[in-house]
């Protein structure tokens, strides 16, 4: 796949022989090019403190060789940590629209596709449903209009989103190179196409930054009452990292979080008594084993767990929200209530210091192999208002500045129809080009970035891969994706696993 990828400016660098000839040895920022004394050299290149600098450098090297520290991990806890670079965002909400929202019907208008609708597509297409494959181009049945000051073009299916376009960056050049759901969804979450068993992006963020809340998990997943996405619980696995970093599932019904509470008859005073006894026993033991940091950490983790019980319940109590907020998210209507509640919960969680919240849908509603004319409007009606409300609500609370909101699936859909081009027509999978949007947390607002070809089949301009997406999101959170490492199985593991990945600066405000 990397060989399919369109090279970007960041990657195209000259070799030793073919490098730009203008930059010869003398072009070093106006510095002298004559012989440099060792002393001068050190003064200039080793921090200006002379020979001691090098000595200390070597000393540090020696220390790094100390046997106790092969590839050291960050502390394996959830204490809040400062990122290694200035951060724009401190949290992220990902509205994961798995199944493959049809970009050419939602965010990526294609007049040419409409013009050619019904004609055969001339180019190669990889189909997933070969038995229903068709090469007939299928112009979008939906109208696009420009909105906001930015003039972003949005389909009539997303009237609420249309109102927030000036806060959003639309990316129209997403590319996984794989049309299948699993392969691409794993690419988005774990950094490697098709591979499970890796920590998901939430895990990396939790590992890097810890939790900003001292009483809530760092990484939470809001599950849909209709079930899990493909791959189920792998979607929030911590892979080779400790379970500390896996997503905590918030179920759509009680018990909302597993193991959060004891059975009802043991709640309240009884549990307080239990924890008090446990604490007393543990403190006695820790005293007898002074200096064992892990014992102290475990005592603290019980305290955190107990605090979580109260904090989580408080965070989940939507009754605290005023009526206008409930209406904003569509809690007053059957169609939007379920997704609206979860979007509102996501805001409440982030407000309370959760670093990464991800919303999933059950039953692949975006996977419109047929009935594009009915199924796609239906899922838009369920999700459009709540998603837009989330951005608007975060903004009015001043939280949007520090919270990245991500909307998007793992793939998009083909410009040709699946099955017959009739009222029931649908579209097959397309990982070659599709759209997502990002808002807040330092994302440059009001931009539309990248482009697909004239019919929306392939990303052709400013291609963004899931790895680029990860690098960019981590960058906004103050994390250098090339530096953040977890040492496991004898090597330093990184989110993009060594693949080319660039921070898309044009998306960063």
């Amino acid at each position: 796949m990397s060989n399919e990828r369109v090279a970007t400016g960041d990657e195209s660098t000259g070799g030793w022989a073919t490098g730009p000839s203008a930059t010869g040895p003398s072009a070093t920022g106006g510095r002298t090019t004559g012989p440099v004394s060792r002393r001068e050299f050190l003064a200039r290149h080793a921090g200006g403190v002379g020979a001691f600098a090098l000595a200390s450098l070597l000393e540090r090297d020696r220390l790094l060789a100390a046997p106790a520290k092969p590839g050291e991990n960050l502390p394996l806890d959830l204490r809040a940590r400062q990122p290694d670079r200035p951060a724009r965002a401190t949290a992220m909400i990902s509205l994961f629209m798995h199944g493959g929202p049809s970009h050419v019907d939602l965010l990526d208008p294609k007049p040419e596709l409409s013009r050619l609708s019904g004609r055969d597509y001339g180019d190669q297409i990889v189909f997933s449903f070969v038995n229903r494959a068709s090469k007939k181009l299928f112009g979008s049945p939906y109208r696009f209009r420009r909105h906001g000051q930015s003039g972003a073009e949005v389909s009539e299916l997303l009237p609420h989103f249309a109102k927030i376009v000036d806060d959003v960056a639309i990316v129209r050049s997403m590319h996984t190179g794989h049309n299948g759901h699993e392969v691409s969804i794993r690419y988005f979450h774990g950094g490697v196409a098709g591979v499970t068993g890796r920590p998901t992006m939430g895990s990396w963020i939790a590992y890097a930054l810890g939790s900003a809340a001292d009483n809530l998990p760092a990484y939470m997943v809001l599950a849909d009452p209709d079930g899990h996405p493909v791959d189920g619980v792998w979607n929030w696995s911590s892979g080779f990292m400790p379970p500390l970093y896996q997503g905590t599932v918030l179920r759509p019904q009680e018990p909302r979080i597993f193991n959060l509470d004891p059975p009802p008859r043991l709640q309240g005073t009884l549990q307080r008594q239990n924890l008090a006894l446990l604490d007393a026993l543990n403190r006695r033991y820790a005293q007898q084993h002074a200096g064992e940091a892990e014992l102290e950490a475990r005592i603290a983790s019980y305290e955190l767990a107990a605090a979580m019980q109260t904090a989580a319940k408080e965070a989940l109590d939507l009754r605290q929200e005023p009526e206008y907020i409930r209406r904003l998210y569509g809690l007053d209507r059957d169609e939007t209530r379920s997704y609206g509640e979860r979007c509102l919960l996501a805001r409440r969680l982030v407000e309370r210091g959760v670093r990464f919240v991800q919303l999933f849908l059950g039953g692949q509603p975006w996977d419109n192999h047929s009935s594009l004319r009915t199924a796609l409007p239906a899922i838009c009606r369920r999700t459009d208002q709540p998603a837009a409300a989330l951005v608007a609500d975060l903004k009015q609370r001043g939280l949007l500045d520090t919270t990245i909101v991500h909307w998007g699936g793992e793939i998009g859909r083909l410009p040709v129809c699946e099955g017959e081009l009739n009222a029931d027509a649908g579209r097959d999978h397309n990982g070659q080009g599709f759209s997502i949007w990002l808002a807040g947390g330092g994302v440059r607002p009001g931009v539309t970035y990248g482009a697909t070809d004239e019919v929306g089949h392939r990303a052709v301009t400013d291609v963004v891969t899931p790895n680029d997406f990860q690098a960019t999101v981590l960058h906004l959170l103050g994390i250098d994706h090339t530096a953040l490492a977890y040492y496991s199985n004898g090597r330093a593991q990184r989110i993009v696993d060594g693949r080319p990945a660039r921070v898309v600066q044009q998306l960063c405000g």
Partner: protein
Amino acid sequence: MVRTALLAAGGRLALGCACAAAVVGGGGGEIAGNCRASAAEAAPSGGTPTFETAIRPLLKVYCLDCHGAEEHLEGGLDLRLRRLAVQGGVSGPAVTPGDVEASLLVHRIRVGEMPPAGKKVPAESRALIEAWIAAGARVEREEPASLPAGLGITPEERAFWCFQPLARPEPPALDRIVGSPGELAEHPDADVVRTPIDRFLLARLRSQGLRFSPEADRLALVRRVAFDLCGLPPTPVEIEAYLNDPSELAYEKMVDRFLDSPAYGERWGRHWLDVAGYADSDGDGNADTPRPYAYKYRDYVIRALNADVPFDQFVIEQLAGDELASRPWEELSAEQLDKLAATGFLHMAADATAGAADLEEAANRAVGDVLKVVSTSLLGLSVGCAQCHDHKYDPISQVDYYRLRAVFEPALDPSRWRRPQERLVSLSTAADRQQAAAIDAEVQALQQAYQEKQTRLVAEAFEQNLQRFEDALQAPLREAFFTPEAARTADHNDLLLRHPSANVSPGVLYQYNQAAADDLKQDQARIDAKRAEKPPEDFVSVTTEPGGGLPTTHLFYRGDHRDRRQAVEPGDLTIAAPDGARWEFAAPDPAGPTSGRRLAWARQLMSGTHPLAGRALVNRVWMHHFGRGIVETAGDLGMLGGRPTHPELLDWLAVEFAAQGWSLKQLHRSVMHSHAYRQSSGEARPGAARSGDGAAGIDPRQVDALNALYWKFPLRRLEAETLRDAMLAVAGRLDRTLFGPAAAVQEDFAGQVDAQADCVRRSVYLQVRRSRPVSLLAAFDAPVMAVNCERRVASVGPVQSLMLMNNDWVLKQAEHFARRLRAETPNDYAPRQAAAFARRVPSFAADWRYGSGRFDAQSGRVEDFRPLPRFTGEAWQGGAELPDPQLGGVLLNAQGGHPGDAAHAAIRRWIAPADGVASIGGTLVHAAEQGDGVRAAIVSSRQGAVGQWTVRAGQAATEIARIDVEAGDAVDFVVDGRSTAESDAFAWNPTIRLQTPGDSAERAWNATADFRGPLGAELPRQAAYAWQAAYQRPIDDGELALVCDFLAAQIGQLRAQGDASDHELAALASLCQQLLSSHEFLYVE
């Protein structure tokens, strides 16, 4: 929706260049740090860096891929030698000695042009290169006039510690360790030198001014050894046997007893299964198809370890058991079966070939994973990096990688891949087959009879049904119907189509003749039953070579299996043999069924001289004993791994292991007999006093916070499986059955995975479904088998805490534990504690008290209330005998009681738990005709008597509509005998209803239902015994006080909430749960 196969990912990417990450991450990642480290390490002390020691390792990471590794040199630049760098390429010299600014190498790095593709040379590394150039670009020695192609192995790389030939170092002599002979005697408790291991360790400790800790006490030792060797808490018998053994070798005997336990193989087998990547499923995407026979490999491992199969044999069987097992593979003997099952090692890796769209890609990925398992477990190196290019840090060329692959390719050949279900060898015996054949014959006979009968019945039904048709149609329909389908004419078909109801078939026979259909059904059931008598066929999954010629192994350019380059011959890693002495394979025996490559390599690996295998294996054993390896990165002894804390000890152990006949149990003994292992893990004590400065010591934590030098035994948390097993053991539920198919797991909505049907077998027998790791185990860091696990982490976090606090399974085990305490606590256990408990909580019964006293009718008050001291099991009374000399005949039981004399009325006292309004009901009965009857009163401590009754040979309703009470008020139900207490037995069952303000629920008490003896009479004994069961030690007084208060509070609370459960049991279960969640349970000293 389309569910794309797991491995649809493009081959090139999917094979993934694992170590590119290290390069990309060079901007500050630890790997670059380590690389620099190794360079600096090798640098001559005090001197400036030289090309060989410091610069070439850096260039290898960032530059040599394109500028030296391959015959084609980018830009004509070769950086393998300093002189070639100076000579330069098309753009001119890359290095100008002494002139940093003029050096193109530095420039290109500075401006970020090199290395390409966004990789970066970290600033520190760049500074090193600059310093080297500035100092004249020194070399260590004269450079050769010519170089063979490729990177080769430099003398510096060859000098790396783990590639050195194995030799047996002499343990440091005692006088070398302690300096003066008398000094050892000064610290007899701490500086015990029991075995050579102690000498190696103490020498290091002494060099840092530290010393050992004293020996742990016997209780700690037996617990340590039991968990370490068997993964279970020691039983009382095991503890007593050791505590009461006066012999000098008591400890050694105790160790041997645990080594002899079958649980030993389960525990240490689990360790090996970690590195083997054991799983009961294929890892093929969402299906994650179960591997129903994988357990035979797991059982082989357990059996082999229990039998102390020499480790060389153990490894050889796993790599080449099929080449050892005599053929044919029919009627397998136990020995054959073992050898074949052992080869499961080579297909433990995930294998998604069963449903893969791209079989070759999936197969190549599986081979890559197998090689990773083999190399990390047996070589202690991660060779995977060399799949795509020469290893950037270790001297492992890409050719070496494919040579190693060629050892396995005859058995693991992607072009002739055997999918998981194609590797099965039947375990049927001739008798099984004979029996099966006999049954098949019977079934066939039955089946034939069935067919005939069915045909006949269908024909009969047809004929009968035909009568419904008009006469003229009957003959043509009959003809069409009985003409075989293939021979029917168009007219026939047309006729039948027009008259569908004429077309009787076996499937719809029931619609025509229900009785006939039922009859056939019964016959079918008989046939099925007969078929079921066939013995189920069992299989073992075997890795072997399909035969039919040897495949040619090719190097894959950049690791892409579609881009094959030169053919390579099988071989071991070049670096594993001395320079110029590469180990060669013998030519295969043309008559043999296999190539013999794996067997030959395995034997060479386990010859006792292999520098990597020996060190890797003993390091792993050490790691399991001490929680960290002598090299901390047990799967990587190479440049990127850690350095040995005690290199000589590691070598000594490796040589000893082979010399002792590869007996793992002997290796355990030599480790566990050491003082280092027997040390206490307790508080840090000041280290060895240095001569001359008196008692002033060194705090070991300041010097060696990580305890890398073993100044104490490390405190270790139970591993996931051990934690679950220990909980089950303590709860009295652990099923100790050995071996057998994996116990299935199931997943619920939120992804919580548990064993099905509350399976209570040891965790090693739970199904390892890659996609469904058991939640409890995963929470405590059991590996999720993506490939394998070389070293577990021990994390701490709220996921674990919540699991222990609230998880249903944990709560259930706590309750089982409580029930076990009730059933098993000896009657005479801990009498002192029981007494102390009674003293501490005298009025343990919270709401009801049973006593005697005097009712003063005038004041309406109760005076001199005293609890009745004696409980008989049915009644409270004054003493063992009635009447009691002091208290007379007073007694209270569930139904009522008997008063004593006038000063000793029978008084049942209720204490109000809260403010509120109470109402009282009930009936007082006095049955006897004799005597003067009884007088009863209900007396509130706040309001005095609120009701009085006198009853003789009759009854009275004792109802009070309303009493206002405050928390702590007493309401007494007093009965005295009037003038005489003769024949004054009474029955009285008062009920109390209490309404508290702000609480809509009413609470109720009933004297009969609530009646009980001294609450908690057995509780302290049981609580004390809980300590013994959970911690294997007696409870201490401080803990007892804590527990008494806890139980009292908890029972009080249960009552206050009107909990319907058995309060004592519930409180005990809560106590048990806290013990199971506590440090002392989770950690082993």
